[in-house]
């Protein structure tokens, strides 16, 4: 696979950052966009734009078809049983809020338990916190171990007759730990507990097959998948979509509206209130095509190679501590340097064109657990090369030099 050629499809890399070539290691936060995605949005607005699913004029038909094609592509990408199981949201956060709100409203009562883990991003904790407050439910946190992963036994021991949902990340956005989703689903299904998977760090990096994974809900952040911002996806098994109440009310999601009664259609319409981010959804179709053209298996292979190279290289630097040592790791390396705050690291690296993330990465529970206020994180995308890692490694050495430790 020619990474240089793949990288050349991303216009952003033609620009210099602080006079240096851009080394983008912040894809877990948001990925860069290939030209095909950018051009697709422009073409849609220039030639095909209209609101979708409403009017009968020609443009509306074209726009609706283009929009719905993305749903078909996504159904294929995650191997959902039907296209109705794919719901567009504004982001993965909204997708989780949708489930927490609609499922929580209907099925969670006072004293019930919501099972999550200490690895969760705030997006997979705060929505459940709202339900906890509203319904008087309890949230149980499956503990993460010193390797930065959650053992299946930690989840097993917290499952009780009161557990109403298990919500877990697919891959930790801090330690990179890949969760044993299939095993969790197996455990949960014995007790008929639905499982929601926060797939933000999964969808862009590993092969997804909802039939194999078996989870009830899977949420996706499209801007982390080389797609536009403003688009998220909720995959949900049809059996849930048939019985969950709508999340938001408005135009487009109704069947019939009378003064004394309103009825709602089935999924996905039922859950897609108001005008959606039409152009972005159409643009996202090119992201899926991009990933499929490169091939998810090739992406996995390439990222694994760069990850292993990066881990080895960074480990050689004695003053750098890598956060977490999961047995199965996604393309994320979080680290700290003794005596240098992650924000100072990020500023110094930026001077060399190296973009990383510093902070708690929306995972305060995990950082508290590890006794850290913040950490630095380098995360990979398909465009990263060994050269990027070399530049990162040298920039880290520069931090040490500036701080003279």
């Amino acid at each position, binding site marked *: 696979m020619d990474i240089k050629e793949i990288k050349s499809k991303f216009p952003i890399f033609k620009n210099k950052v602080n006079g240096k070539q851009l080394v983008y290691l912040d894809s877990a936060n948001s990925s860069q966009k290939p030209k095909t995605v950018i051009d697709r949005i422009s073409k849609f607005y220039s030639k095909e734009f209209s609101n979708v699913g409403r009017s009968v004029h020609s443009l509306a038909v074209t726009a609706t078809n283009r929009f719905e094609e993305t749903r078909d592509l996504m159904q294929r990408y995650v191997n959902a049983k039907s296209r109705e199981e794919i719901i567009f949201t504004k982001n993965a956060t909204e997708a989780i809020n949708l489930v927490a709100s609609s499922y929580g409203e209907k099925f969670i009562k006072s004293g019930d338990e919501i099972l999550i883990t200490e690895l969760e991003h705030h997006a997979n904790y705060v929505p459940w916190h709202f339900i906890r407050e509203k319904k008087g439910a309890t949230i149980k946190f499956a503990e993460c171990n010193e390797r930065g992963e959650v053992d299946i036994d930690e989840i097993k021991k917290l499952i009780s007759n009161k557990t109403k949902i298990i919500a877990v990340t697919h891959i930790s956005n801090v330690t990179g730990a890949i969760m044993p989703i299939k095993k969790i689903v197996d455990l949960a299904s014995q007790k008929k507990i639905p499982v929601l998977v926060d797939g933000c760090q999964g969808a862009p990096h590993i092969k997804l097959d909802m039939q194999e994974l078996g989870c009830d809900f899977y949420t996706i952040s499209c801007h982390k998948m080389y797609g536009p911002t403003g688009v998220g996806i909720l995959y949900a098994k049809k059996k849930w979509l048939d019985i969950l109440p709508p999340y938001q009310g408005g135009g487009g999601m109704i069947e019939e509206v009378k003064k004394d009664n309103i009825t709602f259609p089935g999924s996905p319409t039922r859950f897609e209130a108001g005008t959606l981010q039409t152009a972005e959804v159409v643009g996202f179709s090119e992201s899926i095509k991009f990933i499929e053209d490169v091939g998810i298996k090739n992406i996995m292979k390439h990222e694994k190679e760069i990850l292993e190279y990066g881990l080895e290289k960074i480990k050689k630097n004695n003053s750098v501590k890598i956060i977490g040592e999961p047995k199965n790791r996604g393309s994320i390396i979080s680290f700290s340097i003794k*005596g*240098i*705050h*992650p*924000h*100072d690291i990020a*500023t*110094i690296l930026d*001077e060399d064109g190296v973009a990383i993330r*510093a*902070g*708690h990465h929306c995972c305060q529970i995990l950082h508290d657990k590890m006794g850290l*206020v*913040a950490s630095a994180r380098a995360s990979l995308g398909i465009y990263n090369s060994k050269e990027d890692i070399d530049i990162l490694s040298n920039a880290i050495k520069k931090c040490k030099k*500036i*701080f*003279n430790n």
Partner: protein
Amino acid sequence: MDIKELYQEIILDHGKNPRNKNICKDFNKDAKGHNPLCGDKVHIFLKLSNEKKLENISFEGEGCAISMASASIMTEIIKGKQFNIAKKIQEDFLNMIKEGSKLNMNSLSDTENMTMMSLSGVKRFPMRVKCATLAWHTFIEAVEGNKKIVNTEN
């Protein structure tokens, strides 16, 4: 711009060996500052006399080199000064960091001026401005704010 203009020796020194980093025993006012975006935390403790003199000031906190150095430098400079003077220094400092203007306090010694100027490089790093200003805002809150004023005597 060279990164070393941001991380000057004075800043690195204050960051590594912060002055007045403790809870001063005689404090009668305090306030906490928190930057939730990056996690910088600072807690300012000070003793304000009836004549509005800052008889003592110290801080506790966790954060990046810029935030800790800035807190350390602030306590060193305003300790022993009248509050109204310290407030002018604070305004002067904020103008320097945010607007890039020169310090125009006449009452500061050359060393004090130079120490404060060492943080002027932050202006060119917009994402780091909040790190540098956190302690200075918290200091004003401790004296004038009503969110959290603790008196050890009560």
